């Protein structure tokens, strides 16, 4: 069902007018904010990304592994029509983006991150999984006030123009996150987080320094899972107090977007501040032409375990929190799951493939049941009209069809199903899709 159809069906059932009225002032305020922000008609946040691939991880790289992260304020859009005030980091001089840049470095790099803080409160960054992190040249460590009260998990960049420089040697390959260490329940929810990818010396087609972690570098994905309580964000925007005991997430996001925005391409112009896609795009596993699986790097900055369920096939978890699942004696400790549970602050690396095991073919190996005629079914937006990979067939007149070449699609979503909603709009939140193209050569677009 398209979002349009979804919205129609919601309207056909019952629009919750009470909630719309309750939200009215918020929506109005945010609408004004958006109008003001966009008033000049100049939004260059993610313009100029025509060279980005439509899906797959978008790395921010730097020959010297030195990154200047400047705080920004901005807005993201949610599929229920709401707009949410956020904080974030952008590379020096760039407009607001959410989430913050994905920093990709090589094993052994000396990584330098200069944080410049324009916000009205102190901030900091912590780098879980990195060792011997320095802040302004001294060991990064918790900060206490004169009375011994903890004020931050790391040295801070003071409010209104302060800065701090963190550095560390990226000694171990893997998937990591960086996130605020100052009042993190607020600042992380507000958007002060991002991912770090450390590539192994073994080569870019490996996730770790072990041959068993080989993947197809053309199909490398990052999915950062997060959640938002919009009341917290409104309080931050308006300078109001907020009781964290009232924390109730209403939005669930992948790479800073909620479905269906999650499957929009990288750098989509209609999501100027939310540049990163979560769409997965593969071809069937083939021992000769496509022997290596895709790699999906999961990062969670949420507050609870997310049970992520990919349809189509299991995923093999090959690493956790930047450590490959290999025992001290070389034991294989990886595992396959049809539901991948990602805990708060955790990272998991998974390989994924889909294999055409039974080789169904309309002429030589037909599926042994009859598919009903088109008037007796309802059709999904991604269906080709044919059950066979690489084939298309008739669809009812008026069907909104997004299928290009008989490719397959499989959903991947959070199975705590109240978390695939967006403040009352169902079928949103933690959902993305995997697209499986027919083997080459094909005429897919």
């Amino acid at each position, binding site marked *: *069902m398209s979002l349009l159809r979804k919205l129609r069906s919601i309207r056909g*059932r*019952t629009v*919750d007018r009470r*909630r719309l009225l309750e939200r009215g002032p918020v929506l109005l305020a945010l609408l004004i904010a958006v109008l003001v922000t966009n008033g000049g008609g100049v939004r260059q946040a993610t313009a100029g990304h025509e060279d980005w691939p439509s899906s797959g991880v978008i790395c921010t790289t730097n020959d010297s592994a030195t990154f200047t992260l400047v705080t920004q304020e901005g807005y993201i859009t949610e599929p229920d029509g709401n707009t949410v005030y956020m904080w974030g980091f952008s590379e020096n001089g760039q407009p607001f983006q959410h989430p913050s840049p994905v920093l990709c470095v090589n094993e052994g790099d000396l990584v330098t991150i200069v944080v410049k803080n324009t916000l009205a409160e102190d901030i900091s960054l912590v780098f879980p999984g990195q060792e011997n992190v320095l802040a302004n040249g001294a060991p990064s460590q918790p900060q206490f006030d004169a009375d011994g009260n903890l004020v931050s998990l790391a040295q801070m960049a003071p409010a209104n123009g302060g800065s701090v420089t963190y550095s560390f040697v990226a000694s171990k390959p893997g998937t990591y996150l960086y996130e605020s260490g100052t009042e993190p329940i607020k600042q992380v929810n507000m958007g002060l987080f991002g991912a770090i990818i450390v590539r192994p010396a073994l080569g870019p087609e490996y996730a770790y320094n072990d041959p068993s972690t080989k993947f197809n570098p053309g199909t490398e994905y990052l999915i950062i899972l997060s959640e938002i309580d919009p009341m917290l964000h409104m309080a931050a925007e308006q300078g109001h107090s907020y009781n964290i005991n009232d924390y*109730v*997430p*209403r939005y669930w996001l992948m790479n800073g977007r909620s479905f269906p925005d999650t499957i929009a391409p990288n750098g989509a112009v209609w999501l100027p501040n939310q540049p990163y896609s979560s769409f997965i795009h593969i071809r069937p596993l083939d021992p000769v032409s496509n022997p290596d699986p895709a790699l999906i790097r999961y990062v969670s900055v949420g507050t609870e*375990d997310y*049970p992520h*369920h990919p*349809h*189509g*096939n*299991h995923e093999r978890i090959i690493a956790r929190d930047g450590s490959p699942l290999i*025992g001290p004696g070389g*034991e*294989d*400790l*990886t*595992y*396959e*799951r*049809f*539901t991948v*549970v990602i805990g708060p602050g955790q990272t998991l690396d998974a390989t994924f493939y889909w*294999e*055409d*095991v*039974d080789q169904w073919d309309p002429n030589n190996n037909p*599926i*042994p*049941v*009859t*598919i*009903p005629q088109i008037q*007796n*079914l*309802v*059709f*999904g937006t*991604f*269906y080709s009209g044919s*059950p066979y990979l690489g084939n298309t067939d008739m669809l009812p007149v008026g069907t909104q069809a997004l299928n290009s070449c008989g490719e*397959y*699609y*499989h*959903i991947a979503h959070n*199975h*705590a*199903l*109240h*978390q*695939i*909603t967006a*403040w*009352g709009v*169902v*079928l949103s939140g933690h959902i993305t*899709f995997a697209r499986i193209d027919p083997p080459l050569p094909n005429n897919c677009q």
Partner: protein
Amino acid sequence: MKGNASTRMLNRRQFLKLGGGLLGTAMASAFLPRSKALLSPIATQSEARALTSPDQGILAQVAAEPDFHFVATDGWIYLPPEAAVPPYHPDNYAPENLTTYIFGFRDVTGLTNDLVFAQKMKAQLTAPTWSLQVGGDYTLKLTNLGLAVRPDLIDAHTLHFHGFRNALPIFDGEPHSSVGVPIVRDLTYFYRPHDPGTYLYHCHFEETEHVHMGMVGTTFIKPAAWTTENKMAYDDAAISGYDREFVMTLNEVWTESHWADSHVQLPEWSDYAPEFWLLNGRVYPDTIAPNGSRNMTTGDLNPPPGRPELQYQPISSLVTCNSGDRVLLRCTNLGFEQQSMRLSGLKMRIIAKDATLLTGRNGEDLTQWSDTLTIGPGQSVDAIFIAPDVTEMTKLMFYNRKYSRLSNGGHTGYGGQMTEVHIYPAGTLPPQTEPNA
């Protein structure tokens, strides 16, 4: 890649196409060594198919009768009304003896069309347990009967076989990637299972609502070597061999959302706050009431003896076994919360998760011994315990260690996700013929 081992099934299919009818079905059944795993009352006996008359008109889509025929519809179940959650529980629209509005599946395999359509508003919670076996080909016909209480909802339904490896979208049941089944229409799903294990199934149409409303159940795939005399959950019989098996399908009931559906309202899902935690569609102590059964004349469910209010919750969670039995618990979680199920006084060997034996690619033993298994939404966990020696019937408890989930509607006394394990002296009970029996 695994080979295609379906020759005997294709023979059977051709046989049915040629002969059809009672004789063909009976003979085909006699020739086939595999167990159909139709689990009365949890599902019906395959021989009942002989009673079926062919579908007519728009419902005639397949040449052969399906191995399974399920319907999707709505209905009502019983949760303890004294555990009131005003104004949502008990639902003031509920029929006598019942309390809670649900959507759900029913098994109608072998019923005539008239009897099939008579099952509208007779959904069950949880959905029937069914199983396949590696080496066979299987068909499941899903008919959408519509929602009697909500004729304004023209929802389609689907059956998502959750975890099926290398699934084709057409048989995966996710409606964006394939198709949904409109009201009074049907679709026959086809499965050629390659990978044994314990799986989940549920409707994937408007899934937050349809799953929470009860269109959830457990299915499993038996390995090719499985026989009634030599049962194993996976190919490795040493690890996964068992004498008795019990499906434990976990889910939750948030009474406000069920009430909202019967009262033409929409819940705010981010307020999700269930009050009832269920095992196989019931709360303790109802979990230990016997199985229901199916009346093959009317197609209706017969309630468990003495418990008319449990008519639409036919699956018992009572575990019974003899000393020395290897008892397999096939746990699946179709709720929205992570749970923590404990077997009191005895360690289980957790042998598989998500239909995957806990072994490394080089044969590493990654199974775990524990009295508690953690299971998140959308996961399955298989655990085996060996019943200890007893001289008289001895009881253990299997319950959610999240103690707040052992309450019915927040009221006093034990309830929720809890059941009993009854261990008898060796030789007391005859061999198990069906799961949860």
